């Protein structure tokens, strides 16, 4: 999977694309930790529009970002999840912990 970034007015957007499984999650977490340390954002959006596949390892990534943003005193949310990640998010009930924003 790939992670690209956008940063504007203190908000870091992480654009996740490809497939996020356990194999990819370890590298993704490391990369996201580095990006949060680098930008120290006020808010962080996890954009999942380009994520073709995600399993419960993606839930672990979302929880980790949410906790890290709480430590930084900021907010985290999921943005525009594609259909398959949305089903995993719904099944895990993670939307009760991390909000979902739809722009489309």
């Amino acid at each position, binding site marked *: 999977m790939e992670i690209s970034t956008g940063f504007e007015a203190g908000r870091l957007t992480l654009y996740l694309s490809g497939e996020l499984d*356990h194999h990819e999650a370890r590298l993704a977490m490391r990369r996201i930790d580095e990006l949060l340390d680098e930008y120290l954002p006020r808010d962080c959006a996890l954009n999942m529009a380009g994520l073709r596949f995600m399993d*419960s390892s993606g839930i672990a990534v979302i929880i980790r970002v949410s906790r890290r943003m709480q430590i930084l005193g900021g907010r985290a949310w999921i943005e525009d999840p594609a*259909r398959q990640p949305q089903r995993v998010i719904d099944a895990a009930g993670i939307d009760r912990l991390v909000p979902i924003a739809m722009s489309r």
Partner: protein
Amino acid sequence: MKEENYIKLEFPSRSSNEAFARAAAAAFAAQLDPTMEELGDLRTAVSEAVTNAIVHAYPNSIGKISMRMRILEGSTLEIVVRDWGRGIEDVAQAMTPLYTSGGEERSGMGFTIMGSFMDRLHVRSAPDRGTSVTMRKLISPRAPRP
């Protein structure tokens, strides 16, 4: 239920095989003409079962994982993911949402997702003898295209 077709795969518990396992499952299931949503559900459930075997059955070694898929009479797909690893002491506890003994990249939601995406989920396990996860899903027959 009468068996109409099957495949059996065997691979080592390397995390790079997670993507292979779900791609193989999707390719086999394609003959039932599943919807994109059904295919996504199957791929997700297989990914969870195989990842559990990789992370929990063989935490410090590489072991054998087998995946058997059958098409049963009436468009039902059965998937059995089996390992010969350390097994699960308490299956009910392992299936509790958010419970995990894995690393930080595990959320404890694997069995919950398998259970909600498949019609049937059955787990058999014995300490030091391995674990077998059996899942079934009915693939809804679709009207033929005109």
